[in-house]
């Protein structure tokens, strides 16, 4: 239903025959108070009415304008009468509330006649309904505020590309219970990204149960071989808090750094040995840092026969006295098979 041109003038609050510039200015004034960006969704309806009126006036031909001006002149008398009854274009008032009270008052009178005694009960019931609704809405408000860190939001950031953003996501998780999907994302991140010191430290602060700690440690340990020395040592400290950690320590032995291997061997459970392939690789190394804990471990367990010649050689020729002593003690104690 196209609006009449005279209506449009009223909506915009300008006199008929106004200049295009005035019309534009009036529209802007209305927009400044009712545009949804300023007034929120509540203003949308009024803004739309103003916009519709403005776009009609903008494209109206001069003849139409003149026509409207003539009509407005004729109607002037009627319009002045109308202003009192609150036309639809008075923006400020809340008309909805104006008519109903009459109906309400009628009901009120009826009520008064019928049952005056129940007035107090009714008041209480009304109060209760209001309080109930208030509580429900307050809970809702709290929820909508508390839910700011939604899981999906954190998951996207944990799997992101930017290390700084991943750290931000981790920091926001510290000290909070972790939903399943976030934990899954944590595991995924641990598997895919090279671990850094700061990430590990934050992971250590996480509130995780044994089962999850283990799963996370397994994911992190899968990258041991490519890890830097310092990070690997931090991770080893993390592993040391877990019971039954042999399978994870094996991964640490794949790290090239002697210090990492030594640290893994030191926390290796006594009276057991890593599997033979790793053992062969390790015993061939020359560093004192690796050999001493390795020989000590071997002494506590049974030494496989193939290691005999190498250990004998170490006890005679190695440059470090500590290695010579440990190797010598294995040879002497005769627990070479």
């Amino acid at each position, binding site marked *: 239903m196209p609006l009449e041109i005279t209506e449009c003038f009223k909506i915009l609050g300008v006199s008929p025959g106004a200049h295009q510039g005035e019309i534009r200015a009036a529209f802007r004034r209305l927009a400044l108070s009712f545009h949804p960006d300023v007034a929120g969704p509540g203003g949308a309806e009024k803004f739309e009415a103003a916009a519709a009126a403005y776009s009609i006036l903008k494209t109206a031909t001069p003849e139409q304008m003149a026509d409207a001006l003539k009509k407005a002149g004729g109607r002037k008398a009627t319009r002045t009468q109308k202003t009192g009854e609150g036309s639809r274009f008075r923006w400020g008032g809340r008309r909805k509330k104006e008519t109903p009270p009459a109906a309400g008052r009628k009901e009120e009178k009826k009520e008064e006649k019928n049952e005056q005694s129940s007035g107090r009960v009714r008041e209480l019931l009304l109060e209760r309904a209001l309080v109930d609704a208030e509580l429900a809405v307050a809970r809702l408000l709290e929820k909508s505020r508390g839910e700011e860190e939604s899981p999906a*939001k954190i998951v996207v950031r944990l799997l992101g590309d930017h290390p700084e953003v991943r750290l931000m996501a981790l920091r926001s998780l510290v000290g909070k219970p972790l939903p399943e999907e976030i934990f899954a994302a944590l595991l995924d991140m641990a598997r895919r990204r090279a671990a850094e010191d700061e990430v590990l430290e934050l992971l250590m602060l996480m509130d995780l149960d044994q089962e999850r700690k283990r799963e996370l440690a397994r994911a992190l340990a899968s990258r041991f071989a490519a890890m830097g020395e310092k990070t690997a040592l931090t991770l080893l400290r993390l592993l040391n808090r877990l019971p039954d950690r042999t399978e994870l320590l094996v991964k640490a032995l794949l790290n090239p750094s002697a210090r990492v291997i030594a640290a893994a061997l030191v926390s290796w459970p006594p009276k057991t040995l890593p599997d033979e392939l790793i053992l062969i690789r390790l015993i061939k190394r020359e560093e004192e840092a690796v050999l001493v804990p390795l020989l000590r471990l071997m002494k506590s367990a049974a030494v496989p026969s193939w290691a005999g010649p190498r250990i004998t050689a170490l006890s005679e020729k190695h440059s470090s006295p500590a290695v010579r002593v440990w190797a010598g003690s294995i040879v002497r104690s005769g627990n070479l098979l």
Partner: protein
Amino acid sequence: MKGPVLGIDLGTKNALCALTDGSGAPVVIPGRWGKRTTPSVAAWTESGWVAGEAALAGEMKRPHSTWRDLKRKLGTNWRGRCGRASVNAEEAIAPLLALLREDGEAYAGVFLESCVLAVPASFSFAERSAMARAARSAGFVRIRMVNEPTAAALAYGERGRVLILDYGAGTVDLSVVESGEGVCQVLESGGLPSCGGWDFDAILAMHLADRAGMEKTGRDSPRFRMLLSEAEEIKIALSNCMSYEWIPPPGLGARPFCVSRRELEALIRPSIEKVVSLAETFVKKHRPSRLLLVGGGSRIPLLRRALEERIAPPGRMCLSPDEAVAAGTALYGNPGGRSRLLLDVLSEDLGILAADGAPVPLLTKGMPLPARVEKEFVSVGRGAFSLKVFQGEGGRVIAEAGVSSARKGEAVTLAFAVDGGGLLRIDIRRENGERAVIPPLEIGTADGWSFDGKSDEIRALEKRFSLLSPLLTPGQQARADVLFRTVKSLLDEGVGPEGLESLGAMVAEMERAVG
């Protein structure tokens, strides 16, 4: 919108993002490589998506799964091959937007969930919603769109009526904007989709290949890509000198030769001509007092000269022409003390095609946004039919919706709503109460204002309550008023239904009490 809003200018060639600083001034954010621009390139690798500089660095290694110029492929049926699967432009743009988001987050130190995306004025709603979906999958929750030249106008602080010409790598856009009294009003926006600086690179690359006597290669070949980047360099150099000696990289196997500015201008003149004549029609219609140029293409001497001869010399912007759009989006997203209310308009007609194929516009060009219209149509035949939504003068169909088993003469109500974020939503209501939403345009914006029936519900509740309110004490009335207002604002945030329920329960309880 909660928290800071990231302004994104996703160009055809480069992307920028910006936030505002403490004083409300826009800041263009340096990316992780320390540059303020990020190449708009995305690539699919064995280990997943990469974007930006990393994707560009691997371009020569995998030319077939590295994509540039993604913006103009949005909304088309283009598909990129990656291994056995294929992706569309929307999926390929998402990692790029995610990268920009991360740069913004690392800079701001908070998670960014809202963004303002600058899009070419010539983008239809199909393309806009494709862009919005990409932004959504890049981790943004609240998304708004703004036309590129309009954003640039916001960044330009002066009052008065201005014609802004955004000469980008992919698209050329124009806006006439009038600002003053706290409002920045767009009078008209329009654009040309395919005569940007990037197309000049392609023309020049072909020309170079011709002159050097190289055999023709496919557009995706590493050789052509190398030629393209050489062409770009020459083009930029020729903006500052009259002739440039090109020394081809050894891989191309050509001899050095001189390229003159006149040669380049002969190649690009037709495109420039088109742009200037579009600008002329805008000038004739709106009589702006100033002409501003933004975008990388604003440095082309031929363009400046043509504008100077036929319209007016371009004014001074006091902002880097490359960053004006990004700065404008940041200002639009974070309205602080300095910014002005933006009144945007619809840039093209929007409507449906009638049974005889004639376009019936529902929203006309130049309507201020947000706009909404409802219209009843009567079906002319029986059985299923499809509803075609068109946009623009050519009557380009941007979406279709099937309506099943209609009776002859059944009334179907169509409601078109363009929200302030520049996204279209179409609802179809049938006589039997069935509702449908046209799928490609529906992106489920949280701020679907006053339209999705929820606010009808709340209005009905308010009505019922107003009957009761005389029975309440003034104090109670005020409390109830606060309740209604809170639930309304919660509705806007998208946590509506429970609030409505509790309000409904309250009103019902009260009615029972009153009897």
